[in-house]
């Protein structure tokens, strides 16, 4: 079935792009990649919460 084949191709190509290109090269998990432990991640976020301010543009 031509339609079915086209759709399966689109699904597979899309999933490959999303999971193996976008996820790996464009969407690294910032906290997982930059901090080794949950405690370090917590410290980083608390530091962000206590040292940042939203400035008027």
């Amino acid at each position: 079935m031509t339609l079915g084949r086209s759709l399966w191709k689109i699904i597979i190509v899309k999933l490959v792009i999303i999971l193996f290109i976008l996820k790996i090269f464009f969407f690294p998990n910032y906290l997982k990649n930059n901090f080794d432990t949950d405690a370090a991640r917590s410290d980083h976020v608390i530091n962000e919460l206590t040292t940042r301010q939203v400035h008027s543009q």
Partner: protein
Amino acid sequence: MVETIDIGMVNWSRALFALTAMYHWIFAPLTLGLSWIIAFYETIYYRTGDESWRKLTKFWMKLFGINFAIGVATGIILEFEFGTNWSNYSWMVGDIFGAPLAIEGIAAFFLESTFFAVMFFGWNRVSKRFHLVSTYMVAIGSNLSALWILVANAWMQYPVGMTFNPDTARFEMQDIMAVIFSPVAISKFTHTTSSSFLFASLFVVSVSSWYLLKQRHLKMAKRSILVASVFGLVASLYVVFTGDEAAFQDARHQPMKLAAFEAHYVGDSPSGLIAFGIMNPNKELRDDRNAFYLKVKFPRMLSLLAKRTFDGYVPGLEDLIYGNPNEGIMGAVQKMKRGKIAVASLADYKAAKLNDDILASKNALETFRAHEAYFGYGFFEQPEQALPSVGIMFYSFHIMAGLGFLFILIFILFIVFGFKDKLSQTGWLLKLGVPLFFLGFIAQEAGWLVAEVGRQPWAIQSMLPVSIARTNLDSGTVAATFFIFLGLFTILLIAEIKIMLTQIQHGPEEV
């Protein structure tokens, strides 16, 4: 030391998220609504045994399948963006979002996918009854998927059933039932799903009107229109009811959103609802300019919408920013003071814990808890930063609402002429019917703009501004990703439109 934030990067991250979400929302509402319409068509086939209804069902199922195939997994990208662009937010809400999103992934999506296979490949392989049940299960599974996502979204608008843990910087779930059954979650789910049913009905009416104009597949098109119009009319009336409830919930929990979509600068009682208006783009808070060049109001209706009385006081943007002691309204100015105490006490708590100073940490935590409800306001420099974009809100809301009422009228016309079997002779109505799908799309996206631009500047209402929720990335990187996505999404959209148009052109098997 207070550090500055690259607002350009924040805005690029917001633009990327908005682009992904708006693209995802082309496919999702069609899936939610078409799944029910197909189930209704198949029910008629099941009850009558009329082969032409089976062919009709299979035709719409094919279009449903194309939409599902192109749209599936586009929502996953949003979850990737949480971890990359919104890492502070992602860390803080992990405990809240984990449960609903896991249920969505495991239960709803698998339910949907399993029965999806039976629905598509099970014709003549399973009994008619089991096939029909499978089609209904796809509809239920799709809508259950939406439930969990919308519960998570509603929590961002109205964070309940949680407590903030200052040791881990995470919101921890205390009461999952409060999260699932919060009035905002119920209102969001019912309004979003019913508007999706309406949108899918418009799609069926659009395609069928085109067939009737071309004098093709007349029987199939007329039958399709009748069922879709009745479903669409019921859905649109329900959309009005759920939209009214959504506005009432906004008035209770996000009054700034309500004031922004009505461009209601100064509070009043009784308060009128603007039916139509042209805004003055130069209007600022507390200036003497009129907010509108032109406006038509329904007297007292905003009071009724927001307060459920004809003379209730509806706070304006100026009340909510600067406060109004006469009406007992605390403004962003006052909330900022409390928020800054909350932020400072969190820092004190962390320092005391590091120094093992038990008494100091206890005192700091008590101070934090006393001011926690205003935590997010502590990050602002100016109270006006609590204001969303009034222009976008006003026009998005009025376009959405105006189109919603127009759809009711159009569905009634299609039902009247459909039952009289005069659709083929009413070319004007069919010409009006063809572009309905695009109008429905505009209404859908406008609705999400009201919901999400109206949430700004918050990632989590009153607790976390988007500028603090973000990851500290280089704005060039985020901008590049935005344009790559724009290209990718455009290619996928062209593929969908091309395949869909080919199938529509080809039409159903002759009946």
